[in-house]
């Protein structure tokens, strides 16, 4: 993933398909594991962990959306709604049956996968922008249903409180507990996506993205794999919704509106379509950048303006800067942050030589 390599010297299929092409990759992953499982949670203040938690939730959602949009080439503007399907399924199960969180998590994911596959049916006939509009309809229908069917929403307020997840006798309620809770699923999501993409299913997805007619000719069942892509992607979305619900302690209709779908699309486009690392970069970028910009402006704004003006300026300037930076990064590298990262890596691989 982040390792460097030197030449293609593989002699077997196993080596070619290996997750770790070089020994150093294993060490990188181990080092990252130590940093994120030990150093970060044990040294940082809870506030930073809460920010990390928001990033983790976004990473899982972005990975899921990238499977569909980046790898299979099917646009979806309905992922916010798929998250809400997962969230409400889990919240209802938790409150009506009192089932434990692993059951709810799985059920939420599966329910979202089912609904996602249904919303994905139009993808068999239509593509591109037309499909985007079809999934937009899915988003609006699901929003409407949750808003109006009190059996699902648990009342007109459309919010269901959920107890904190328990691990044996431990109640996971602090940001630090949540950090570990979410990180485990982030790792599972990353490993899952990477493995999926080097399997037969993943290669079928990529074939469909590159040219669906050609894919059909070489024997890929388009019907099955397109719906499978929707289902897997929505499963991720559903799991994201469930995790978000447990993170906040409530499933609320207004947390999954259309703006959320657009945010996630922004993440994968900025990060890089069709790459695991890109999804992670995108989620980090979109979640962290506004916070970083605000910190910078809080520090420097006082030099030039009065406190009242600064308060009014910060949110507006932040939006403008955020937009400008997105444009900047996309112009510098239209293929996203992932490509930018690879360019930097290949530059330093031969550094100080030019080629």
């Amino acid at each position, binding site marked *: 993933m982040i390792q460097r390599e030197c030449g293609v010297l593989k002699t077997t299929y196993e080596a070619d398909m290996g997750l770790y092409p070089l020994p150093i990759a294993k060490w990188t992953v181990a080092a990252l594991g130590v940093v994120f499982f030990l150093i970060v949670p044990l040294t940082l203040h809870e*506030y930073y962990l809460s920010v990390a938690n928001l990033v983790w939730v976004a990473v899982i959602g972005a990975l899921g959306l990238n499977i569909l949009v980046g790898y299979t080439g099917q646009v979806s503007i309905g992922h916010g709604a798929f998250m809400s399907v997962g969230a409400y399924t889990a919240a209802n199960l938790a409150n009506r049956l009192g089932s434990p969180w692993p059951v709810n998590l799985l059920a939420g994911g599966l329910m979202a996968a089912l609904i996602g596959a249904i919303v994905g049916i139009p993808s068999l006939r239509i593509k591109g922008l037309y499909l985007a509009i079809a999934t937009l309809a899915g988003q609006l229908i699901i929003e409407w249903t949750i*808003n109006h069917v009190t059996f699902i929403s648990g009342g007109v307020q459309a919010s269901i409180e959920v107890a904190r997840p328990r691990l044996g006798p431990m109640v996971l309620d602090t940001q630090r507990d949540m950090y570990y809770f979410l990180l485990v699923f982030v790792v599972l999501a990353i490993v899952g996506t990477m493995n999926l993409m080097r399997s037969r299913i993943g290669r079928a997805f990529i074939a469909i993205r590159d040219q669906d007619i050609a894919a059909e000719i070489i024997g890929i069942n388009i019907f099955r794999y397109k719906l499978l892509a929707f289902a897997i992607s929505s499963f991720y979305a559903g799991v994201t919704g469930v995790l978000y619900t447990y993170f906040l302690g409530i499933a*609320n209709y*207004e947390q999954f509106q259309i703006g959320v779908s657009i945010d996630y699309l922004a993440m994968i486009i900025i990060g890089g379509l069709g790459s695991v690392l890109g999804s992670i970069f995108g989620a980090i970028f979109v979640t962290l950048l506004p916070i970083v910009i605000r910190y910078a402006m809080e520090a420097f704004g006082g030099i030039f303006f009065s406190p009242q003006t600064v308060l009014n300026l910060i*949110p507006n300037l932040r939006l403008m800067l955020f937009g400008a930076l997105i444009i900047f990064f996309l112009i510098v590298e239209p293929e996203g942050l992932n490509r930018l990262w690879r360019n930097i890596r290949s530059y330093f691989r031969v550094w100080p030589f030019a080629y």
Partner: protein
Amino acid sequence: MRPFLAIATALIVAAGSLTVASPSLAQSKSEIVIGVQCDRTGPTQIVGTVYCPGFHDYIALINSKGGVDGHPIKALEIDHEYKVPPAVESYERHKKDGAVTMAIYGTPQIYALAAKLTEDRIPGTSPGFGSAAAADGLRYPYIFPIAATYWSQGAAAVDFVKKQMGGSLKGKKIAYIFYDNPAGREPIEVLEDLATKEAFQLKIFAVPPPGVEMGAQVLDIAQRYRADFVIAHLFGGAPSVSIKEFKRVGYPLRKVVSFVWGSAEANIDGAGGFGVAEGYYVMQFAGVGSDYPVLNEIREMYKKQGKEPPKEMASTVFYNRGVLVAALHVEAIRNALKAKPDGKITGVDTKNGFEKISNFTLGGLVPPLKITNTDHEGGGLVQIWQVKGGKFEKVTDWYAAYQDVVAKHIKESGAKK
């Protein structure tokens, strides 16, 4: 170029860190921190751009008078664009900065933070939005609506209509037009209850988001259903559209009463000005107009600094609400400091402070709330004002209605859990 850039960046960083460091040295007694969330850039910015300056002006006024018992108040504001993840982040940031009370802004945000506020024992306010069931102080010990909830507003609206109809609603037709989201649907159960109780006919008309298209609903109300009175509960740009539409179909605006988020100068201006909206009734949870002692003091304060009072003060409805919320937070802190004169107050102390607020009216800008450990709404008091001759004119004093019905619903929602 590059060395120059590096030096410039270094200088800016140094200057920035200096300005951050300096204010903390100024005061002798410890600072009390309030976490303020705000929406100056999101979908409800017409509220936020006026409401938040109102909040800060009141805090500045308190600090210019020497703070609360010598403790300066620091209101840290973070704008969350009406999104949930930034609200979570700003909550944690304020908690890290030692906030002992939080002014939350937005319905999804207060829902998302309810569990955390309770676990961390920091009181959070949700004035005029959020869940009506949160008025139950025993069930939600750390959530304070501190203003009339949608249930109380619905009850007050029915009571107002009843008085307008000459004391009886029997057989009358009331239309309820609302923004089709959970907040818009929330009062329906109370209204339906009251319809049975008062024997009036109730018909509901949903306006789908984003609420700019309601020609059909308004036409239906005016010409097919022929409502005797309309109760409107709309948000954002929708109230302005509703005024225009009622005007267009010739329905008299003196038969329309709007809930608190369709009742500001901005809503009237959006509809074409006060001349167009003549007769329109609006509900308020803070006093309207600029004729209150506290607002005069704020103007004085600006004058002393040699500045003009901010232009936001002209938009009195939202500005005064900002002042009201800030004032209630300061009162809670004052009560907390009274109980703990050493100044080391925590969220639990400010929670108790909120629950001691009683008859604090700020010269009429704040209703005579009585917040207790069971009632975090403080009585559900509202005033009705009317658009008349180019401004808002007061029609009723502070009142609450059908509190037994509202209490029943709060109890039922607690039992459902």
